[in-house]
């Protein structure tokens, strides 16, 4: 077999092995702690991929996306607690509301320049948080202000109520969600709308001169992103069965999503995943082992990594990692190194 096709074969084999591992993981990795870590990893990869639709492809920097996570979580939960509506249904309602809210916010703000847009998303995100923190009830719904909402724990596995005893079903749910959202992203990047979005993000004036109503596409991206983000919010709520405004609507959360995308590579499809793979384990392990001694260390690390990446690889780590992977494949298969 010649080196080139050998390389392709190795590449395919690696990918198949990876897929197998990922899909069968819960069967042999039984520690709930590690499963939880992975679940959160996938969740953040999911949320960041949704964020990426606006933050990467549209070229703006939304720093208030946690608001939509919260909208998803609160809507489905509140519907469940008050009227017994299954979160599987509630999550779509939440997603719709998030899309509508995102559109309403997006229309005026997406016209603003980069920095101003970022500020306005922050202001909005904080505004929502403050609003929720100060609301105890809204009509028949109990919001519970700053203390957050506890979802009543039902005995055993309850599919209709989106609750499971073991972590395994959650693992598969989020895995599927992640794969779906990746496909959605890939699809969007290939159709005309995706090209228009990228063009509008990079050189809005030129895009406009080529017939692209940049604002319209940005708003669409925003609506889609908010919709998907809210679905993730419901998942989070059902996973942890408890959430409160400072956590789920907080600036920290919004920033983390942005950081992951930026470190991994905003505007790329694999970027959020890589970013999540790097940042989340770091965050989790520092939190678990060091937070008693050194609180906030993981955030320091986040900040450091962020600065380093921005200084040396502003387009994210996807590029160099891809090249590295390519190089390894070349070494193994003996194929010629690609001429630059």
């Amino acid at each position, binding site marked *: 077999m010649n080196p080139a096709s050998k390389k392709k074969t190795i590449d395919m084999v690696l990918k198949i092995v990876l897929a197998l591992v990922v899909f069968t993981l819960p069967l042999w990795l039984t520690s709930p702690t590690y499963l939880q870590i992975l679940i959160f990893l996938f969740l953040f990869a999911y949320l960041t991929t949704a964020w990426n639709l606006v933050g990467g492809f549209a070229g703006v920097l939304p720093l208030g996306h946690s608001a939509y996570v919260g909208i998803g979580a609160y809507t489905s939960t509140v519907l469940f607690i008050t009227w017994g509506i299954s979160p599987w249904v509630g999550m779509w309602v939440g997603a719709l509301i998030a899309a509508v809210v995102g559109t309403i916010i997006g229309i005026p703000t997406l016209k603003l320049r980069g920095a101003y847009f970022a500020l306005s998303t922050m202001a909005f995100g904080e505004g929502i948080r403050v609003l929720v923190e100060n609301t105890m009830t809204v009509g028949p719904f109990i919001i519970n202000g700053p203390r957050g909402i506890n979802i009543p724990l039902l005995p055993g596995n309850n599919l209709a109520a989106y609750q499971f005893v073991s972590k395994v079903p959650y693992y598969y749910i989020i895995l599927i969600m992640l794969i779906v959202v990746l496909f959605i992203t890939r699809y969007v990047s*290939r*159709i*005309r709308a995706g*090209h*228009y979005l*990228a*063009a509008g993000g*990079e*050189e809005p*004036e*030129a*895009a*406009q*001169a*080529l*017939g*692209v*109503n*940049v604002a319209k596409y940005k708003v669409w991206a925003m609506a889609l992103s908010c919709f998907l983000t809210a679905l993730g919010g419901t998942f989070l709520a059902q996973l942890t069965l408890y959430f409160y405004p400072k956590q789920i609507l907080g600036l920290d959360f919004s920033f983390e999503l942005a950081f992951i995308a930026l470190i991994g590579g905003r505007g790329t499809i694999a970027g959020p995943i890589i970013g999540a793979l790097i940042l989340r384990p770091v965050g989790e392990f520092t939190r678990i082992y060091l937070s008693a001694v050194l609180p906030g260390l993981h955030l320091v690390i986040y900040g450091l990594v962020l600065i380093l990446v921005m200084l040396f690889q502003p387009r994210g780590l996807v590029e160099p990692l891809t090249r590295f992977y390519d190089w390894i494949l070349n070494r193994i298969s003996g194929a010629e190194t690609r001429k630059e």
Partner: protein
Amino acid sequence: MGLLNVQNLSKHFGGLKAVDQVDLSIEKGQIYGLIGPNGAGKSTLFNCVAGSYAPTSGRILYNGEDITGWKPWNICRKKIARTFQIVKPFQTKTVLANALVGAFLRTANVSEAEDMAMAVLKKFHLADKRNVLAKNLTIADRKRLEVARAMATAPDMLLLDECMAGLRHSEVDETLDVIREIRDSGVTIFMIEHIMRAIMTVSDRITVIQFGRKIMDGTPQEVANDERVVKAYLGESYGAA
């Protein structure tokens, strides 16, 4: 009535009258030039026609339709394309991807648009560079890409904003040929240019602007011999290529 009619157009920025009651009329199939000393208001006029600025007063008619104050993307949909003086390629995208954005105006289907984009690139001799990232192109290639991309939208009228600035002598000649080819393919051209020999040789008619006002329009011959024009350019060397 011409293809493009600019009637009594004015654009004020606060107290500054960048464009002051300018009339001009471009016939279908013409290469129409716009010249004037620096700061005369040429680009502003262009931007009003292209939709980047909304005029303060006056009208712009295209094919009889009033397009005054329309947004740039709608103007493009009306088959008026434009290039920018400082080229704006999509730097992180390939040459093909750049042209693709233009071609998408005509079809939403990706492979159709790709074919159209490739056809345009071939005409502009950029086909072999289709996978090169725009930021890695030479300045001459970037300028060509700028025009090719606009042409990918299949316009009926093309606005060229100083597309020859900074080009070498031979490159200017090449560009002139390209412009003629574009016109021969049925596209009306409206261009701003500083390189006198270029615009004088290629234009059918020229309007001269100074301090925002039109000081004359006519054939290149008439313009070159007009006393007002010569005075306006006193100090500027003719044949700046």
